[in-house]
């Protein structure tokens, strides 16, 4: 039963990542692209890691996976912010009209 829940979570996370990759190609503007892909990337990563934690049961491996999830949850938004900040400060134009 528990493994079924883990497999379900992993499938949901793979669907999230598929949406993230589609978002990476669909949006024409850089800023909307980075917003979408970074957010869905983090959510997909969190979901798939929770699925792995459940799959590997109560063991040191599960604790290690939770540590990796914590590390990536902290660093992923920071690195995305650094990319967007360097794009903005280097003068990449933000076009005002809503992109289709």
């Amino acid at each position: 039963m528990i493994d079924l829940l883990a497999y379900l979570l992993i499938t949901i996370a793979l669907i999230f990542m598929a949406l993230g990759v589609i978002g990476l190609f669909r949006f024409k503007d850089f800023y909307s692209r980075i917003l979408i892909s970074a957010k869905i990337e983090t959510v997909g990563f969190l979901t798939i890691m929770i699925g792995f934690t459940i799959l590997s049961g109560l063991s040191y491996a599960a604790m290690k996976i939770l540590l990796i999830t914590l590390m990536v949850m902290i660093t992923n938004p920071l690195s995305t912010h650094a990319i967007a900040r360097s794009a903005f400060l280097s003068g990449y134009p933000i076009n005002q009209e809503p992109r289709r």
Partner: protein
Amino acid sequence: MTFLETALFVIAIYIALVLVRVILGPTIWDRLLGLNAISAKIIMSIVIFSIITEQPYLLDVALVYALLGFIGTVLIARFIEKKGDIS
């Protein structure tokens, strides 16, 4: 193929698709964003591989890779922003 091997295969397809964005990306920051996404996917594939082969010491590799990927991305972003002089 078991479920985890198909998950690993699907993540490999995602890496290939994001690689297309890295190659096509008009600006440097698109490429940096793609590399950041690829490193996150590589961490997932390392964890899947360590679960498939039941070798828990591989998870340390994923942890070190996550931190180094973060440092590398931030360094490149600052390097581009400061146009070369990091000091």
